[in-house]
């Protein structure tokens, strides 16, 4: 079939990779520009001149954290840590607060294992889920592009058979980036599409199979059961698959992200989060705040609208870009 174009991008050289990683940092920085100017300018205002720490400063600091969607509990906790450090003379004046906070956040985020789980024998199956409008389809295109650039053969399974034109949208993406696609009609059984995609990926020697699913609110039990069923179909066909179950989370999401992660995790055991739409004014602070409630590593971030706007999560980069 005509649209099964199998484009293999050349494997990047070491230099390319180094160049790219620097570029990607710049890009992330740019993506987070708005976030940064917002948070940092306030930080800078706050910390521009050395002054003694007092409760007013701590309150102001808390405000800033709250505005990043970190959530009341986590923000209060971090402020308490700062307060403790201040009381124990670990930090003396406002000029230290900044580094203290940055180090603390980095340290916390570094506890995550963000490496991608891959299958010893291909295909690696990645299932992608999330609430409506979180950016699943675009994120899948980005993921596919990410693997294709590594010289992998990628197939997409159009298992979002519910939303009008979701299949078409994924189809357009697959052509743009050069990935295989398995699709049925809108309204078809998503588990059946997935099954066909699994068969096809085995017979065509696919390296990475990415399974799209319909967006669903995590509180809808029936739809969550449907999601579990899709996962079961995958596990039955290929042992230990899906190797990754990524939940796409819109970076503008507030405290509801906690509930989303919990309920998606209950249905399909999420292995990682794809943080999408980080290029707005959104702060993505929720991923810092979530950790007390449910600790799932962010594995990828989406920072733009085109297919190559994807990055593997890097705690240093993330925190630096946020505060630099």
């Amino acid at each position, binding site marked *: 079939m005509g649209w099964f174009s199998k484009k293999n991008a050349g494997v990047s050289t070491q230099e390319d990779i180094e160049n790219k990683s620097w570029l990607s940092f710049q890009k992330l920085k740019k993506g987070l520009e708005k976030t940064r100017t917002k948070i940092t300018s306030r930080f800078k205002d706050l910390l521009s001149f050395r002054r003694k720490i007092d409760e007013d400063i701590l309150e102001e600091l808390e405000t800033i954290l*709250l505005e990043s969607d970190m959530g009341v509990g986590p923000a209060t906790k971090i402020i308490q840590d700062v307060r403790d450090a201040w009381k124990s003379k670990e930090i003396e004046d406002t000029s230290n607060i900044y580094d203290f906070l940055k180090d603390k956040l980095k340290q916390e985020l570094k506890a995550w294992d963000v490496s991608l789980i891959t299958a010893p024998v291909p295909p690696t199956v990645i299932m992608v889920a999330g609430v409506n*409008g979180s950016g699943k389809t675009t994120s899948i295109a980005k993921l596919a592009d990410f693997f294709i650039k590594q010289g992998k053969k990628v197939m997409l399974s159009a298992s979002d058979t519910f939303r009008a034109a979701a299949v078409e949208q994924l189809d357009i993406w697959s052509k743009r980036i050069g990935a295989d696609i398995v699709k049925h009609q809108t309204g078809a059984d998503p588990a059946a599409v997935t099954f066909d995609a699994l068969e096809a990926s085995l017979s065509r020697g696919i390296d990475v199979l990415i399974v799209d699913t319909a967006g669903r609110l995590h*509180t809808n039990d029936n739809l969550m059961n449907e999601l579990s069923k899709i996962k079961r179909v995958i596990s039955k066909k290929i042992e230990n698959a899906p190797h990754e179950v990524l939940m796409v989370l819109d970076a503008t999401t507030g405290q*509801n992200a906690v509930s989303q992660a919990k309920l998606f995790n209950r249905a399909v055991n999420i292995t990682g989060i794809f943080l999408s739409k980080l290029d707005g004014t959104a702060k993505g602070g929720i991923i810092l705040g979530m950790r007390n409630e449910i600790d799932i590593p962010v594995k990828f971030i989406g920072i733009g609208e085109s297919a190559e706007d994807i990055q593997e999560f890097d705690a240093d980069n993330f925190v630096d870009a946020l505060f630099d």
Partner: protein
Amino acid sequence: MFESITGSLETIFNKLRGRGRLTDENIKDGMREVRVALLEADTNYKVVKDFIQRVTERAVGEEVVRSVTPGQQIVKIVQDEMEHLMGPVDSKIPFIDGGATIIMLVGLQGSGKTTTSGKLANMIMSKGRKPMLVAADVQRPAAIEQLRILGKQLNIPVYSEKGLNPVKICKGAVKFAKAENRDVVIFDTAGRLHVDEELMLELKEIKGKIKPTQIFFVCDAMTGQDAVNSAKEFDTQLDFDGVILTKLDGDARGGAALSIKAVTGKPIKFVGVGEKLDKLEEFHPDRMASKILGMGDVVSLVEKAQEVIDVEEAEKLEKKLRNDSLTLDDFLNQLQQVKRMGPLKDIIGMIPGMGKKMEGMDINENQLKKVEAIIRSMTLEERMRPEAIEGSRRHRIANGSGTKAQDVSQLQKQFKQMKKMFRQFSGKDGKYLPTDGMPAYDMNIHRKLRSKRKKIKKNKKRR
């Protein structure tokens, strides 16, 4: 996590009972709770700050009414203020008679503009008008396709032109509407990140060309602190007329509603409460206030119950309760009706004061499944007279349902207790059960229970 706001406020304020007036000092703790509740609901930090200040001002100096607890009184003030802030309700769309009413939907990516266009068209159709859809989103792959499918479902025309710039499409659409005799035109515009100046320019240009009757800003109810930024930006650029809040059928508390209203002053017109095209409702500030405060939503609970509970069945059941002939079969029926209302956790969450208490507590739906399995493994006769189930029957039922004999006898015991409880409520003449379709919730039950408790206490003292 905090408990139900009502619960924690009451604990704090009950200390004040009989103190006379609410003062700055003594409501401070309570306001802290309100602040947390609002922030947990994603209300913008600054909006929360202003709000707390206003509520404090209003509350200070108020006399503690003897009939209610100070906690309840504060909650009432908070709720009033919230409703005041989010109201007044204005879900009207000012249609232009004898001409085309033009509605333009704007919003961020993934906020639900396209689906909302379809829902809005559906709602407008039910008002006897003839809407059409315009796909002005040329950005997202297959967005036009999606709108076309919605149009087909609603059986209304969808105007789109591939490859043209959105401004031109919109101009063409207005002509098309006139030719096709359509009196309402809904424009689904491209969503992007609002930092995108290009999009804003495009939208402004469309606005200038088509001169929309109304512009609605579509916002995802799950949005965090950023909701204010995008709402403000869209409002400054486009001066929209109202807000449509989407995805409220999830468990988002929707503090964004409060923030957006506070920041832009524009009314929230409609809320999206489901994926189907008929799931667009008018906005109710009172319900929203309860939701934001995490106080449960009795109205929705009742509505949900009405959806699934068969009136006739309920009457039959009531009779059975009254003459003490409730069987396990009836019980099974009840279980299924409750299950049809959705996950138990959601239902309990809607009961005021229960919502947050249940957080973290895993309600065991499996327990219910177990009970169901046990009852299903019984013969009809056993369901009628569960007390007659003895050893070998119990074994058979346990085997059949994959449970243990203890589970079966536990169910027998519980059912017996339940029947006994109902008997107490209904009394011999059933005077505590409603007789004429009144809500089963009767103050008499409270009174009776209270007097009973008192009696028990007295008895204890005597001993």
